[in-house]
């Protein structure tokens, strides 16, 4: 359980990091908090030729509010965003999601953008980003682009990130006063990856439900009002539309049942917070 050997670069500037990623091609990989990558190195599921440590790039260590958007740079640790003074006012969904994300000890090291890059289908931060309708800023030596979170996640731990590219920041839309948010999940033990996680938003545009842990990526759905008599049918349709699978953690049937129950609970809580 020791990593295979690799070259290591701890660049002082973003340009230096981007050049190394461009030249390294498929051999080069970013290391951020290491909380997902180092287990993969230890188990030799990953054998990169070069690791580029981005945690000393001061330019990426920022949490910034610009208009209706909160930008979180690539070297911001999860615990830093969790402790951000405006979190419960401006990102109440994340305030509700953080206690579910691993443990105090992993949040102290892991980054927000690293979780998005890793794209685990059960992960809380990708789910929150997609449910809120956020975006991801990607950067390579040659270009910068911004993609919608919903387009960024394309499958099981698969994203739109191209060779030589890195995530520079992620963008969360700021909560609007009067909107309601809720987050819940079911896992084996506290801090384990979710079997199913649900995030809900209730605002003047209606209800939105985000679901992780069922399909190969987080998915988000609009829903009719709670008191609508079609509501349970709509939730049931969503449960069946997701590509649920049996695995060692849970059966597909149990996952669909969790979607119906957790989905209902989170939507009810979000609606109550709105009222």
């Amino acid at each position, binding site marked *: 359980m020791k990593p295979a*050997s690799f070259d290591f670069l*701890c660049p002082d500037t973003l340009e230096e990091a981007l050049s190394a990623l461009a030249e390294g091609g498929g051999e080069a990989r970013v290391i951020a908090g*290491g909380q997902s990558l180092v287990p993969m*190195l230890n188990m030799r599921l990953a054998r990169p030729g070069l690791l580029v440590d981005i945690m000393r790039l001061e330019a990426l260590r920022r949490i910034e509010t610009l208009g209706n958007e909160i930008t979180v740079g690539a070297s911001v640790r999860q615990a830093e965003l969790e402790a951000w003074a405006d979190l419960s006012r401006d990102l109440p969904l994340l305030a509700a999601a953080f206690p579910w994300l691993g443990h*105090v000890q*992993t949040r*102290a*090291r892991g980054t927000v953008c690293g979780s998005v890059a890793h794209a685990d289908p059960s992960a809380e931060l990708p789910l929150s980003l997609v449910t809120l309708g956020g975006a991801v800023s990607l950067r390579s030596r040659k270009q910068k682009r911004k993609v919608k979170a919903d387009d960024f996640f394309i499958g099981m731990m698969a994203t739109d990130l191209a060779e030589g590219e890195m995530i520079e920041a992620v963008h969360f839309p700021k909560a609007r006063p009067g909107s309601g948010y809720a987050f819940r999940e079911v896992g084996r033990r506290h801090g384990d990856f979710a079997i199913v996680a649900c995030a809900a938003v209730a605002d003047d545009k209606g209800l939105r439900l985000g679901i992780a842990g069922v399909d190969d990526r987080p998915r988000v759905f609009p829903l009719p009002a709670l008191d609508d008599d079609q509501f349970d049918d709509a939730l049931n349709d969503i449960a069946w539309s997701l590509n649920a699978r049996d695995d060692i953690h849970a059966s597909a049937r149990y996952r669909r049942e969790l979607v119906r129950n957790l989905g209902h609970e989170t939507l009810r809580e979000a609606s109550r917070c709105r009222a």
Partner: protein
Amino acid sequence: MPRMNAAQRHGVDFTLNGRKVRAEAENRMLLSDLLRHEIGLTGTHVGCEHGVCGACTVQIDGKPARACLTLAQQVRGSDVRTVEALAPAPAELSPLQAAFRRHHGLQCGFCTPGILMSLDTLLRERPEAGREDIREHLSGHLCRCTGYATIVEAALAAAEEQRKEETPNA
């Protein structure tokens, strides 16, 4: 910093338990192995080597962190504390350690160094910590012996003691 070649060992300067140290490590060396095998501080235990058991937990810049998920090169310039830093003198336990002993917070002791380092951060950051905070911190640790109840009692007792000490007239 220039690119560091995989085949060589490279110097890494950091602060360890209050003292400046310079160690040599290959890029692929984990902090847990640097501490145990290169520096000889074997108090930090290694259970799973993939972040799950918490036995290897140390403090990096005042925060609890898995030494098995940290590359030695990543602590350059950081302040690292291990369980060896807790006891004020060789024959004396820290209040938290003494509470573990009084309340039977350990049996085999394999998980203990990691748990102590997590709880030490908690009690420093939040002197008012209660049962729920303690349980939350313990969720990042596995103990196969105690059933956790005695660990929670030990931590509560240490927190209580610390609060009394800070407000002597209360």
